[in-house]
Every structure is written in C-alpha cells, then in structure tokens.
C-alpha cells in the first residue's frame, strides 16, 4: 500500500462560479443587466417585481426567472403583468445554482434591458451561489424584524443593495429602521439601501433609478 497526498486548493463552488461567469459575460455582451433577488419566503420579492414591471413596462423590456421549491405561481403572477417569466422548480432544493439559470439562457430574448432572477425564498443558502448577476439585492421586510442583517451575514455581505420592503407596516410594528440600516452598513459599508412599500407603491422609483444607472454603466462599458 502506498499513500499519497495530493494538494488540490480548489474552491468547492468553483464549477458554479465558472458557469456564473460565463452567464454574466453572455448577458453583459447583449447589454442586459441581471439582478438576483434574495429574501425570506414572504419578504415581498414577487410583489416588488410586479411594481417594477408596472413602472418600467412602457419604456424598458424585462424578463424574470422564478425559483421556487414548488408551483408555477410566481411566474404566473409575473406573466399576468405582461412580462415573460420562466419558472424553475427546484423540487426541494433551497437555492438556485448557476447551471439552472444556464439552461434557460438560450430562451432569454436578446433585446432585454433587465433580467431579474427571483431566488428561492431563503436568506441562507442562495447567498453562496453566484448566478451570473450584476447586482445582488437582498430584501428585508418589516415583519421579519430589524435584527436580521447580523443573523444572516452572508446574504448581506454579498449583496450590493438592501431593499427594505413593506415599510407601510412601520407604524404598526416595533421595527427600528435606523438600527437595521446601521447594522446592515456595519457588515457591508458599500450596501445601497432603499425603503419600499409595494402596497403603497413607494420607494420603487428610487430603486428603478438605481438599476437604470447600473444598466447605463454596463452599456457604456460595452460601447
């Protein structure tokens, strides 16, 4: 018997990262800005997308990839707004992986402005998987509580922007907005923060402006 030690030094999620980079490159070349939405179940990811769709439909083209453990419900909600949507049913898996997005990629229209990927509702696992996005958004809804950024650090440290949702509930619940924002910025000083309410249709424009400015930068880079 001969023993041998092999030094590998390979990232365990290296293959996901590689596929994600290829996706990002393909979409960037087409001038499409890709946004990965992370958040707990019920944080308001689909409602936020519905509002964004209503606001941008006249001037911009978007499509949505929906990730869920079961059902086509979210994709149907998006399609009802006249937006093309693809549903990935993970069949139990708690997150999307780049290869799942890669399978849909050939069907994505080339003339899009925005491609949104709504991840499986979960603040833990999706944070480890790059899907080829340009912007990662983490959602935090008021009913979840203001202590979440430090409890789920990976989701907040790997995100570019924090979208606080259901802000219409602030008067009704003991959620300290300042505390939540401060903690989020402590673990990620570069985080852009937006306060929104899909119900009251507030703060959505600011978020769209942020996406538009990123889209503009991406296309400038291409030119």
């Amino acid at each position, binding site marked *: 018997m001969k023993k*041998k030690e092999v030094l590998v030094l390979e990232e*365990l999620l290296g293959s*996901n990262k590689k596929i994600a980079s290829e996706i990002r490159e393909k979409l960037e070349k087409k001038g499409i800005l890709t946004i990965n939405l992370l958040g707990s179940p019920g944080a308001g990811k689909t409602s936020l997308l519905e509002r964004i769709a209503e606001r941008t439909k006249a001037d911009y083209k978007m499509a949505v990839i929906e990730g869920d453990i079961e059902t086509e419900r979210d994709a149907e909600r998006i399609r009802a707004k006249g937006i093309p949507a693809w549903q990935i049913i993970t069949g139990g898996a708690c*997150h999307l992986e780049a290869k799942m997005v890669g399978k849909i990629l050939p069907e994505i229209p080339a003339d899009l402005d925005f491609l949104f990927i709504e991840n499986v509702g979960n603040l833990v*696992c999706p944070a*480890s998987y790059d899907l080829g996005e340009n912007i990662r958004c983490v959602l935090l809804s008021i009913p979840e509580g203001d202590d979440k950024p430090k409890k789920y650090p990976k989701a907040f440290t790997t995100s570019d922007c924090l979208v606080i949702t259901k802000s219409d509930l602030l008067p009704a619940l003991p959620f300290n907005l300042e505390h939540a924002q401060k903690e989020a910025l402590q673990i*990620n000083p570069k985080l852009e923060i937006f306060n929104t309410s899909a119900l009251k249709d507030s703060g959505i424009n600011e978020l769209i402006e942020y996406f538009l400015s990123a889209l503009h930068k991406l296309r400038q880079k291409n030119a």
Partner: protein
Amino acid sequence: MHELSIVASLFEILEEKAKEQKAKKILSVKLKVGALSGVVPEFLETAFDIYKKDTIASESKLKIEKVPLKIRCQLCGTEIVKDDLVFICEKCDSTELKTLSGTELLLEKIEMEV
C-alpha cells in the same frame, strides 16, 4: 441547508482527482471552511458521511479547518480578526477593508492510497 449540494460538488472533484492519480481509495479529505463561507462545518461532516457510502471515499475521514474572518484596513494597514461582523477599522474608522481570509470554502488536500 445547502451542505449536501456542496458535498456533491466536492465528490465531483474527489472522483476526478482519484482518477487522475489512479487511486485505489481516498483515505482523508481536508477542507478549509471560512467563518463567513455560509456553511456549517458540522452539517458538512454529516452530509459527507451520508454521501461517501459506495464511493471511492467510503472509508475516508473528513478533516475541516475552520478559518476565522481576517481583514486588513486599506488606509492604515491594520490587520484584525473579526468576530463581531462590524466592517469598520478599529483603529482609524475606515470602511475601506480588504478581506484576507474567512470567506473560503476550499478543498485543500486529499490523502489517497495508490
């Protein structure tokens, strides 16, 4: 709980490396898991023990080195091991920090019988 799919990725690499080396079996696997890697080492161990059955690594042991989160301030050069997740330099209050280690999820080495 995405540890099982991470272990599945690990086994893809293990099988490839074992084939390259024409190994008879894998004896041990050493990982480096950062404090901010997003995975729980104990769950990785459980997932590994479930997954290894009927594979070339069925008798192997998983060794995990936990790596603390270490950052360097880009302004004053201070290096700090962070356990409070406050990404502000303790010396000069700068937020221009570089992560040196603690986010990795790495297969470091494999011990095999050839």
